[in-house]
Every structure is written in structure tokens, then in C-alpha cells.
């Protein structure tokens, strides 16, 4: 339910950004807002404090937007969310807005985790292989996780492709447990 509502807000912001040509900036602003919201407990409680008036909430969000260098569209959207006590949707709105923006820009984001540091040549080859398969621009992020023992796991959108020893052991364990 909350995902559906968040999608409406994200869709509205996406359309505004696309019309104004500031979609990338809006996505960044909302991402920063979402990070601030996740990091600040006081900001999360902004919705639930009955002693705060709507004007006070708007003032707090305007001050926050000013410090983060947000545009008027972003601040107004946050004020609207605060008036309707929907600030808890902010992370979802930011994520959905990023997803819509990527879809609109033809970008696919991939997170590559490996047991050991990958060479740049291997990363380039991997990016080229994903771009050739999906036909989209690839934005890649790499991470090193020794718990994987050996191999590489990639998360591309909502898909996970696992080629690690840890993944194979997990699959073997699940198979044995099923039997």
C-alpha cells in the first residue's frame, strides 16, 4: 500500500523533473533527503510529534532543504508529504524516483561483489558484457567481501546472479536440507 502511494508521489516528481529538465538534480536531492531521513531520528519523529504545527514542520523542512541545497520543487514536495504526514514514504519515493529516472535515461545499475579485488580490465569486460546483453548504459559499483570465499556475485536491478563458492555451498546446503 505504502509502495503504491510512494509511487504516485515519485511519478509526480518525475514528471515535474522531466518537464523542467531537472530530473537528475531532483533525483540527487531526494536521495540526499532520504539519507538524511534515515540518519536523523528527530526527522523521522517529525511526523508524529503532535506539539508541532504544520507551519513549524514546513519551516524545519525548508531549513533542511536550504542546507542541502535542494530546489523549490523538492522542498515543496517534502512540505506536502509533511502536511499529509507521509514523510515516512520519503525513502521509497527517492528509490522509486531513482528507478524511474534510470528507466527514463536508459541506465542500469549493477553492484558487483567479489571475494577479492577485481582488476579494472575485468570490470570493464563485465560492464561491456552487461551493456551488450541489456542494451543500456551500465553504472557499476564494486565491493569486496571475503566471506564469498571465491568468485563474483552481481545484482543488476532486481536480479541477482551468483557465481561464488559461498553461493554454491548455500545451494548445496539447501538441496541437502530439502532431501
Amino acid at each position, binding site marked *: 500500500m505504502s509502495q503504491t502511494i510512494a509511487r504516485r508521489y515519485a511519478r509526480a516528481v518525475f514528471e515535474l523533473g522531466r518537464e523542467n529538465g531537472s530530473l537528475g538534480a531532483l533525483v540527487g536531492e531526494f536521495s540526499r533527503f532520504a539519507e538524511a531521513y534515515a540518519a536523523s531520528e528527530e526527522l523521522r519523529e517529525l511526523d508524529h510529534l503532535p506539539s508541532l504545527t504544520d507551519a513549524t514542520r514546513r519551516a524545519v523542512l525548508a531549513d533542511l532543504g536550504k542546507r542541502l541545497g535542494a530546489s523549490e520543487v523538492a522542498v515543496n514536495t517534502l512540505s506536502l508529504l509533511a502536511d499529509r504526514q507521509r514523510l515516512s514514504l520519503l525513502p521509497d519515493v527517492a528509490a522509486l524516483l531513482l528507478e524511474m529516472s534510470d528507466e527514463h535515461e536508459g541506465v542500469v545499475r549493477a553492484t558487483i561483489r567479489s571475494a577479492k579485488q577485481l582488476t579494472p580490465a575485468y570490470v570493464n*569486460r563485465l560492464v561491456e558484457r552487461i551493456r551488450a546483453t541489456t542494451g543500456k548504459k551500465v553504472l557499476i559499483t564494486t565491493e569486496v567481501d571475503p566471506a564469498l*570465499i571465491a568468485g563474483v556475485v*552481481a545484482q543488476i536491478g532486481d536480479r541477482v546472479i551468483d557465481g561464488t563458492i559461498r553461493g554454491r555451498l548455500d545451494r548445496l546446503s539447501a538441496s541437502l536440507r530439502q532431501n
Partner: protein
Amino acid sequence: MMPRRLLGLRIALAFSGLLVAGGVALAQPVAPPTARPNAAPTARPNAAPTARPNAAPTSSANAISPITGLPGWHPPVGGSGPAPQAQPPMRPGHDQKNVRQLVEQLKREPGGVMPTLASPSARKFPTDEHGYCIGQGPNDPPKNVNLFHGWLGVNNEKAVPAPQRLDDSSPSWFAARFGSTAWWKWRLTPHPWRYENHDDECDPRNTPIPLLANLINFGLLMWLVTRFGGKPIAEALKKRRSAIMSEIDRAKEIKASAKGRLDQYAADLDKLDDKQAALRLLYAEEGELDEKHLREELGQARTRMLADADFRVVQEAKSTRDTLSREALDGALVAAEALLGDSINDDDHNRLCEEFLNDIGNALVKGASDGRATGAAS
């Protein structure tokens, strides 16, 4: 209803008339057989030791009876036996004439002041040595019945005093025995006011409440009762009678029921031994039946418990087997992980990376065609 009420009213009026007639007849003082007032005083055998100033004169005809202790003209008092010693001495001269003499004597006394009509309480009238008012002792004749004097009320100012009854100046035969003409005229005239000294009951001029007024009041009361209270009282009595009758019927029913129960209880008591034996037999049979049922239930419970125990044993064995398998699997995985972690080198890692690079295209295509969110390189 009406004739009955009228009949009662007539009976009440007739009774009232009889009372009036009887009262008038009895209230008239009986004249002494001889003229007493003018008789010379004589010493009486039981006279008081000191001569009283208002002692009534007595004549020879007033000789004291040795048996009754009363003068000859006095009506018998308290039956025919001799008078008890505790009785006050006889006062044979306490009639109206003696009262008049008392009044005259009070007027003549140097310090005595006879109260006037306007001031009846100026002085108290004396009493005799026993505390009785003069002329009102227990052995004195009763006063005249007042029929209608003062029918309007008490007014000492307007009350007409009674004239002298026995006129000594014209001693006719009738006046000497039944009263003077003036007295009879006063007696038969319904004077509206009467005299009453509230402060002194011994005042000889006190006139009692008129008997006729009492009778009229009584008759009026009876009329009011019969007129306004006859029907409700009769209905209430009828209701009360019906209620009492219903209560009696109910009591009879209760009595009959109680008698029936008593008979039943008596019959039950007679059959008590048989009932006891039958009950003992019945309880024994029921006990045997209960024992049988209990044995069957216990047998079923035993079978059920054995089956449960078998099932639990099987389940526990299965659970233990699963736990052991899981623990063995976890241990094997941990051991494999440790072994792989120790044995895998960079070449193995690079080889896996190359395999991943070769398979990722197929995995992305397969995941897209399957519409699944996850996939895995071989």
C-alpha cells in the same frame, strides 16, 4: 338497606328516650319520709367528735340503723351487709337544703366571702373531712339531672340560678314533697346558659352538661354514622367476611394437602425397609455396571496411551535424525568452507570470475525470459 338503617335509628332513639326517662326518674332525690330540714339536731351515735359548723340537723326519724350504719331515709349502699368501718361517716343532711345552709353560713362567717356570680373563683368551697365536696360524697343522693339548662353554652354572668326547691313559706303538700312552683318553672324552662365554676368543682351552683344535648349529640352522631358510614362499613364487613371465608377455605385445602402428605409419608415409612433393600440392590447393580464401564474406559485409555507413546517415539526418532542430519550437514558445510578457504588460491578465483563472465549473458537473458528476479551462474 334503608329500612334496616331506619330501624337502627329508631332503636337508638328509643333507647335514648328510655335513658332520659330513667335518668330523670332516678335522679330525683327521694324525699325523706319526714320533714328533716327543720328538725332539731340530735347527737348521732357515730357522729364526729367535734361538731361541724355545717353539720346537717337530724331528726328522730333519721335514726342510724345499727346494721347498715345509714340513716333511715338513705337508700341502701353497697348491698345488704353491714357497712365496712373504712366507709366515711354518714352525711344524711347533704341535700340541697343543707347546701343552701352552707352557703348562708359562708355568708355569715366573719372572714368568709361568698363568691359572686361574676367572680366564681374568689374563694374555694370547703370539703368534708374526707375530701369530698359538700353534698357530693359517695353516700349523698345524686344531683338533679340537667335536661336542657345551658343548651347554648356556659355563661356564668347570664346563667339563671336555681330557686329554692322546697318552699318552707307555703308548705303545700306538693311543694313539700316535689318542689316549689318557682323551682318547677325554673326546671322546665330551657335556659340557654348554665353555670360552671372551672376552678372549683365543689361550687354548689355548678350545673352539669345538659343530658338532652348529649342525647341530641349522640343521635346526631348515630345519624351521621348510619348516613355516611353505613354503606362503606357494610361493604367492608362483607369483604372482610368473604376474605375470612376464603382464608378458611384455603386453610382447609392446606390442611387436606398436609393430611395427604402425612398419609403418604406414613405409607412411605411403612415401606421403608422394602425401599431400602431395593435401593441397595439398585446401587449394587449400578456399581457393577460402573466398574465394567471404568474397566473398559481404562483399557481404551491404555491403548490410546500406548499408541501415543509409539507415535511420540517415532516422532522423536525422526526429529533426532533430522537434528543429527542438520548438525552433520552444518558441520560438513563448515568443514568444506574451511577446506575451500584454505585450498582456493588466486587462480581458482580468477577461473571462477571468468566462468561468471562467460555465463552472465545467458543468465541475464534467461532471467529476463523467465521474468524471475534471481538467477545464478553455473
